[in-house]
């Protein structure tokens, strides 16, 4: 088989079906960009999970005077007493799953709040009195936060047990939901891409039936007859895959580093690095090459007699 002959056949075929080729390229590019995006989103969620779950604690907030006066129902019996605090601490230390317990008094809480929110109107009217004393608890196994929550919720002197994890979980759930949506959309685009490829092959096989008929009669091998069609699909797919790669790289660049610049706006979030993006590219390219080629191969079995 001569490469030049085959290459020129591919070129002719792709140009003949220019609109169809364009449609294949675009649909492959979009579906694989979504696929890559979904993979990266999963990476991002995992990255954030390991980072945040490590830092996240359960906080047990105690009633302060202010709570008692403003009539917070859990604090009807007045501010927390030293004994109550002592009791909570002792109980916490008895629990196996608790790793460490830090105490934070109202002044420290006030300071932290100021640090975090600075000059906002809310921070300016706040006084140390309004802040609550709390225990910040670090668990050995963050999955078991419920044990702590149920144990201390509603105890005398405890205003609230807050599991910061559940707040994060909502965020992660949202991200996972977006992920599922992206994958669903990807599946849809992929089906469209495959159907376009099958159709392209059908049209292409029909418009070349004279050539392929002669090839068959003079004894060209089926591989030789099919190769131009399969390679046409593979080339179109590869162009689409390359476009998807470009979209992924640009996507990370404009979302995280520049443009939207989320890395600057959300300093607390650990974003995925370039390595995560770059390792996805070979996979995207491989799929963009193999999937259309396979689709073309199966389409040929139906539309091209060899």
């Amino acid at each position, binding site marked *: 088989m*001569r490469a030049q002959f085959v290459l020129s056949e591919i070129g002719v075929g792709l140009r003949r079906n220019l609109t169809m080729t364009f449609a294949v390229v675009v649909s492959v590019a979009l579906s694989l960009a979504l696929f890559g995006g979904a993979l990266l989103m999963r990476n991002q969620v995992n990255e954030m999970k390991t980072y945040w779950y490590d830092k996240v604690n359960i906080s047990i907030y105690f009633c302060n005077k202010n709570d008692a006066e403003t009539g917070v129902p859990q604090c009807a019996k007045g501010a927390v007493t030293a004994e109550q605090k002592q009791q909570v601490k002792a109980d916490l230390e008895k629990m196996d799953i608790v790793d460490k317990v830090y105490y934070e008094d109202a002044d420290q809480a006030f300071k932290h709040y100021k640090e975090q929110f600075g000059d906002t109107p809310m921070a300016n009217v706040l006084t140390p009195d309004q802040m609550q004393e709390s225990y910040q608890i670090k668990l050995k196994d963050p999955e078991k936060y419920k044990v702590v929550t149920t144990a201390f919720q509603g105890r005398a002197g405890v205003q609230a047990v807050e599991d910061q994890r559940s707040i994060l979980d909502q965020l992660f759930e949202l991200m996972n939901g977006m992920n599922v949506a992206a994958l669903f959309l990807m599946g849809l685009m992929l089906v469209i891409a495959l159907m376009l490829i099958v159709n392209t092959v059908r049209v292409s096989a029909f418009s070349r039936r004279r050539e392929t008929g*002669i090839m068959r*009669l*003079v*004894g060209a091998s089926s591989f030789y*007859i099919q190769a131009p069609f399969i390679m046409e699909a593979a080339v179109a797919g590869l162009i689409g895959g390359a476009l998807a790669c470009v979209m992924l790289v640009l996507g990370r660049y404009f979302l995280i580093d520049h443009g939207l610049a989320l890395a600057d706006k959300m300093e607390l979030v650990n974003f995925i690095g370039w390595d995560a993006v770059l390792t996805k590219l070979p996979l995207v390219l491989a799929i963009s090459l193999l999937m259309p080629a396979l689709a073309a191969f199966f389409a040929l079995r139906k539309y091209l007699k060899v």
Partner: protein
Amino acid sequence: MIRFDNVSKSYPKQNRPALRDVSLEVEKGEFVFLVGSSGSGKSTFLRLLLREERASQGQVHVLGKDLARLSNWKVPQMRRQLGTVFQDFRLLPNKTVAENVAFAQEVIGKPRGEIRKAVPQVLDLVGLGGKEDRMPGELSGGEQQRVAIARAFVNRPMLLIADEPTGNLDPQTSVGIMKLLDRINRTGTTVVMATHDQQIVDQMRKRVIELEKGRLVRDQSRGVYGYQH
């Protein structure tokens, strides 16, 4: 060269089989006319030879191979030893005469040097020397059929199968084509030709095989088109 042993072929959705219990043998170097009215099974016979179809019953041997046992991927290899010519020429309209002939060699991976030598040779043989660069559309029907024959013959097949090669040609041109086929036959190539052309069959006095409703009804050496009453 060709052997049919009790071959039947029926197509799905058709009550009457296209071929019924046909047995015959064609030796190397023979020239055989296949005659019969439309629907008599001539085309099916040729399709079985090319292994475009498989026999429903019986055995078809071509070039010493049992076609039923020939695996699909070996079929191209077998077809390289066959040449085929059709009523409608089947040339590529966007390729020149020489390219059309060369195509048959390119697609089976013949080296370029060999193609460059073989193509002018075979075009000379069919009487188209000097017309290498013409397009098929510029040629007469007879000339186009000569190109098709050149393409079929360029790989020097053992067996040439012609399906009504003169069906679209006037009698005079047909005679020219038949002379060419006869010359090819004299080089030792077996020729099987399906035809409706009574004049040609009667003139050539070659072996005649007649099919009727799928049955072999006549096998006559030095025969004529129809029975003479």
